[in-house]
């Protein structure tokens, strides 16, 4: 538990069992946060867990790989989730192979003249959301996990069910990177993102896909004054 005393914002990680495609994310979050979350709080859910409950993952060695995916993945630095044929093929399956190939070619050319990040802009929304093998907790560590579908609808449902101030779906890792994938209107997603920078979700084995930002409403309002 971390606390920013002067602003009274508390980050409370919530442990759960491993959630799977058989679970409803809204029902599960409600179950695990009952009695812990109030009307001034924000519920945060890890992006990959939302996607898993939606069944948005593929077992890596069951993906049929095209020659184009094998070639295209070689142009991604090896630390990227699209640097493997199955990662690239997953993106092509979601966004269309020609769109991805074009975005990659154009992005690569523009990178040569110093313009970076165009591939992720043109390659479709999944280009930046896909987690490759090893990117998610077991038993999904052998899978390619997509970004969640309809994140804004999921956060709206979470907020409605929990009666809290807001809800966000976040992509956070131990490298101090935090990105908001879905956020309810009226709350400052970037502000919440900064509070998640220390990754309260923990590593894969810690099974904490949910956290509560206590009294986030007051925190946000105090900064606006």
């Amino acid at each position: 538990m971390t606390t920013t005393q002067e602003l009274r914002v508390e980050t409370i990680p919530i442990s759960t069992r491993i959630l799977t495609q058989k679970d409803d994310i809204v029902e599960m979050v409600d179950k695990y946060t009952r009695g812990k979350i109030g009307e001034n709080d924000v519920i945060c859910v890890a992006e990959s867990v939302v996607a898993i409950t939606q069944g948005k993952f593929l077992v890596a060695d069951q993906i049929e790989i095209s020659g184009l995916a094998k070639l295209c993945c070689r142009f991604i630095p090896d630390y990227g989730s699209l640097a493997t044929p199955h990662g690239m093929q997953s993106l092509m399956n979601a966004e269309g192979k020609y769109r991805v190939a074009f975005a990659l070619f154009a992005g690569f050319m523009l990178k040569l003249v110093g313009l970076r990040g165009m591939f992720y802009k043109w390659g479709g929304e999944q280009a930046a959301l896909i987690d490759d093998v090893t990117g998610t907790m077991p038993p999904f560590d052998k899978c390619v996990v997509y970004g969640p579908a309809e994140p804004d609808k999921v956060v709206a449902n979470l907020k409605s069910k929990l009666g809290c101030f807001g809800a966000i779906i976040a992509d956070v890792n131990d490298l101090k990177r935090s990105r908001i994938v879905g956020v309810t209107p009226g709350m400052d997603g970037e502000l919440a993102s900064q509070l998640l920078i220390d990754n309260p979700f923990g590593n894969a084995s810690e099974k904490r896909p949910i956290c509560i930002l206590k009294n986030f409403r007051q925190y946000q309002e105090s900064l606006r004054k």
Partner: protein
Amino acid sequence: MTLEFPVACVIGLGILMIISIFDLLIRLFLKLRGTEIVVPHFEKRSPWQVENRDETSITLSTKFLFANEGKSSAMLIDVIARTQLPFEQYDAVEVRGRVECEKYPRQDDYFAAMIIEHQESLMVKALVTLKARKNFHIDEALAHMVDVPIDFIYETAGRNPCHYSKFRIVLTAEEITQVAGVTLLKD
């Protein structure tokens, strides 16, 4: 407008040359970037040792490296130790093998996929459990032990698609009995 034959030839050759140069540059780029090359170094394993033992069973372990000798990151997705001792050959002992990452030991025979950066390696621990059958004490069962071949089957990926590879080692009866402190009897 129609092009004269020699002009059309020159344009055609020019296009072919551009495509060839582009193809050559891509091949050069891919060659320089390289791929992952995952190599198990069982020959450099640690000596077998007793991990656990009771009256009816003994677990032996050894550690060895999976090295990524390529230029690109690799994923070691799974490692399986498949023991090959049929009861037709020797039915006083049941043998089971498993592999775990040395850094993250587990009890569930699940191998969590790991990344091996290029020119780095991952230490794994192979565990082989020998369980006496037919109400034998483990020492009695091991006294007549035979060699146990073990297939290590491992799945890797990286720039190459997911694929399985395999190597075989033989855990000899002499090694087993020596580590267990049992005298091997010749039948």
